[in-house]
């Protein structure tokens, strides 16, 4: 609207405010949301790490040992610890929100959300246990 003409008879000058760049800092719920979204960076890092490990594994025992040494350096270990907490945050929020996207009906009975969430966490635990058992048991 033209600032010199404050209003026309049938269209007053509305006040519009653009959202602040820091809108996500004003409410704890928004901050929690942004942290959840930033966990996607931890996901991408985990992919990169897995690719690096696979390459080292294929290259031989020496490159693999070098990579292990690199993983032991304090900054990398700290980064991995931080990324792990972000990954856990992603998993927990993902499984809690998953039942909102699908309504599961068995016959006429609607499966309660809590049951779906519990099922998700059980699957998470089972999958993690399977991977750990396979990986740690390799070459025994």
């Amino acid at each position, binding site marked *: 609207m033209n600032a010199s003409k404050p209003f026309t008879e049938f269209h007053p000058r509305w006040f519009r405010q653009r959202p602040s760049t820091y809108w996500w800092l004003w*409410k704890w719920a*928004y901050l929690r949301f942004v942290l959840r979204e930033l966990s996607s960076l931890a996901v991408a890092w985990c992919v990169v790490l897995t690719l690096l490990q696979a390459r080292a594994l294929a290259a031989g025992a020496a490159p693999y040992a070098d990579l292990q040494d690199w993983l032991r350096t304090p900054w990398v270990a700290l980064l991995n610890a931080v990324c792990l907490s972000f990954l856990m945050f992603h998993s927990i929020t993902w499984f809690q929100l998953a039942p909102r*996207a699908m309504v599961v009906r068995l016959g006429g009975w609607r499966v309660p959300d809590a049951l779906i969430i519990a099922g998700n966490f059980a699957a998470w635990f089972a999958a993690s246990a399977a991977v750990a058992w396979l990986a740690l048991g390799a070459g025994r």
Partner: protein
Amino acid sequence: MPETIQLQVARYSPERDTAPSFQSFEVPCPNDWTVLDGLNHIKDKLDGSLAYRWSCRMGICGSCGMMVNGEPKLTCGTFLSAYVPGPVRVEPLVNFPVVRDLVVEVSDFMRKLRSVKPWLIRDDADAAATEEYRQTPAQLDAYRQYSMCINCLLCYAACPVYGLDPLFAGPAAIALAQRYNLDSRDQGAAQRMTVLSSHEAIWGCTFVGECTEVCPKHVDPAGAIQRYKLAAASEWFKHFLMPWGKSEGK
């Protein structure tokens, strides 16, 4: 309980101001007074020029939505006693242009609501029904929650994406689209999907979830939107894998 409480009310007059400012009023604070009662007291006794919307004063018309201490609330259901000793900051709903004082312009929502065709769509629209469309209680339950929306727009004030993205349809519009999509009497899901799925009307939603938190009628618009996304994605894959056949939106 103190005798009075201070209300800091946003004032904006397009003839005089370029931006809103706050004006403070002391209003009585009996146990059962709501913020709306305080505003009515201001209008009746202190400053008759205050402009705001209200109607039923019992949480069903959806007119009195405002920001109370930064949270979107229905002022008829928000008690002053919860904010003692105060002050209580009352502002117009965010994410909407302010017309005057506490009144916001909602035609953007009206347009988006109309675009999702919130009415029963029948294939045989011209044929007169010979008997009523019957519905079992289970079929009613499928959409009943989403029919509770009173269009109060608190969810729009809570949604950061609506404030940032002008193309986003918003929580209530999508929840109401779902109300009709899930209604067994409706046959218009495909029509609505063309509107919602192909433009950025729903995909801007990042499931912040605040819309559900502030909804006074427990409609859960966030859940409605996620279900719609899943339906749209399933429909895409079905069409991708089996391109023949009639496209459907349920």
